[in-house]
């Protein structure tokens, strides 16, 4: 047991910080529900960060560390599926962005507008749809990801077999991404309550607010460590536990964080929604918290 980063992991994250610094777009100024960062995404691909789980000396844990860090950025960049899901299904690293959906092929999916491949979890089977030349209908929403819907459901479908690998990696990806979004949202709100005054003192000096932010911090830390352990073990039990725990925290966490920002937090000008509405998107994936928690129970104690 050792919670410290290895020298290689520290080096990966240091390099990632430099890359973020060099390639991030300017801070968002226009009030929009979602922002992309094509130059950053290109740099991430070019430098191999999204394929790190495929490298001989690295693996899923490093991919989860990268995913969690990048999820703290305000930009919606497709990282988790490329870094954590696609390698397990032996999908070519060049075939990205990767979109994920469950159920019907025309279910709205994150990143589908630019994706080259759609992975579908249907019943107990994993399917793959190549998207070159496919017609994608953009879906506008509050959820802070670029969503699209596959307009042509008669496209050829490749059967990848058993759904377990796709579901397990999707859970790990979801958990790592949620942990990063939670951390960034909490950091933003902490800054807000330190500086915003009411009744002659900072909002953050009120005990009622302090307690809920401390609980939020516990949820963030637990989500992060559960996600990293799941990436380390790649086990059904840890993956379902991590995703289920993170999803179960999202309603209270997002409610509290918005609440402490008042009406300001309901505007598009204030960036909180860039993380809380990604979290709300993640809350609804894979059947929601209950499905993951039942999965954790079944993986632990059987059916």
């Amino acid at each position, binding site marked *: 047991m050792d919670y410290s980063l*290895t020298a290689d992991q520290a080096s990966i994250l240091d390099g990632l910080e430099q890359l973020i610094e060099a390639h991030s777009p300017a801070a968002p100024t226009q009030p929009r529900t979602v922002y992309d960062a094509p130059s950053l995404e290109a740099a991430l691909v070019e430098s191999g960060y999204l394929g790190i789980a495929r490298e001989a000396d690295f693996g899923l844990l490093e991919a989860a560390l990268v995913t969690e860090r990048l999820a703290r950025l305000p930009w919606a960049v497709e990282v988790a599926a490329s870094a954590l899901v696609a390698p397990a299904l032996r999908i070519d690293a060049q075939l990205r962005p990767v979109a994920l959906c469950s159920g019907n092929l025309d279910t709205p999916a994150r990143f589908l507008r630019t994706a080259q491949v759609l992975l579908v979890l249907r019943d107990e089977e994993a399917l793959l749809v190549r998207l070159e030349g496919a017609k994608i209908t953009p879906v506008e929403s509050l959820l802070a990801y670029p969503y699209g819907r596959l307009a042509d459901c008669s496209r050829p479908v490749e059967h990848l077999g058993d759904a377990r690998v796709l579901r397990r990696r999707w859970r790990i990806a979801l958990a790592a991404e949620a942990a990063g979004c939670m951390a960034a949202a909490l950091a933003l709100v902490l800054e807000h309550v330190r500086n915003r005054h009411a009744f002659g003192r900072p909002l953050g000096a009120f005990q009622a607010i302090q307690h809920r932010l401390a609980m939020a911090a516990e949820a963030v830390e637990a989500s992060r460590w559960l996600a990293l352990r799941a990436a*380390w073990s790649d086990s059904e039990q840890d993956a379902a536990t991590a995703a289920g725990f993170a999803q179960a925290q999202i309603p209270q966490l997002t409610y509290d964080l918005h609440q402490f920002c008042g009406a300001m937090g309901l505007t598009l000008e204030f960036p909180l929604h860039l993380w809380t509405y990604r979290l709300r998107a993640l809350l609804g994936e894979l059947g929601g918290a209950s499905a993951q928690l039942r999965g954790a129970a079944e993986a632990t104690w059987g059916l």
Partner: protein
Amino acid sequence: MEFGWSPDEEAHRVRVRAVLHRTLPADWEQISMHGPGSAEQTAFSKVMCAALAREGLLISHWPRAFGGEDEAVWRQFILGEELWEAGEPRGPQYMNVNWVGPVMMRFGTAAQLDKYLPPIRAGQAVWCQGFSEPSAGSDLAALRTEALPVEGGYRVTGAKIWTSYAGLADTCFLLARVPVTQGGLGGKAAIVILLVDMRSPGIQVKQIPSLIGEGDIHEVFFDQVFVPATERFGAEGQAWEIISYLLQHERIGIPRYAFSRRVLDRGVARLKRLGRWTDPSVRDRAGRALAYCEAARLLIYRIVDGKARSLPPDDFAALARWATVQADNAVNDFLTEFLPDGLLGADPVQQAHHQRAIAAGIASGAAEIQLNIAAQRWLDLPREPRR
């Protein structure tokens, strides 16, 4: 970063389990139902701790100079995890090895070390901590019990409350205040620590009937109790430094989730036998309780990892304490709702867990104080102005 155990750690866990298997009696579940401060558990703790001492497991984490083996932090933690999973059969003696001994080694006189460490090492000492008072619980600095300096020592008068294990304790680790009129330094600096023989004339112990088991909480009255100066622990004015040190040892890194997890496993096994596991809502709630246990586990591991790497203690412990309270309650709420007969005699272990879980956010200081600490020291939020 590594979430697995080394072969040595795995072997250590196997050994601890074997010792527990050999030592715990067939009626341990019935004994454990009486609560850690009960006469039954206190008596058994002397059997258990003596056995752990014979196996070299009781104080192996202590420095060699004090009879320990300087055992690695994670090995010691594995022992704690296994003992908690079994329902903590060290009973009241857990605190001897966790903090009484370590605090003694750091601040005690040679005479105090000679007197108090041997019974702890032998697994035969029972201590209680005289901290909380009717008007000073989590706000410990408000304590009022007086220690009047007299020739050769102190005369102690006052009352302590919620004192665990007091009915059967040999010694009390007592906090009292030297009045300013009698030379006390004022405020926290007026507090002195006295090691009080519980058989001293003038001490009266009254058990308080409670929801959390027999012998767990008491009122202790001190009426002009003489304590020799040789039993003052640390210098006058040093008590708060010692208290802060011991609270770091007492409150952090306790693997309570291990007991919750075991009780959850038992509950699920019962639900399966009852044919209720086919209900998805049961699996949902069991999975939720499991997730809270695992969250608490990983946050406690974060603290132990810091100790293992000799990092200075930080206020992350406050978050881990909250996670632990959440885990205990998630399991307790799940079982109380889905297996209510466990509290009606069907499962003594569930009953014992229930009684620990309802105190999880209260014992060792209110969990809300931990939220204050987390907010102000970990999250760097401003203090609420005092009125």
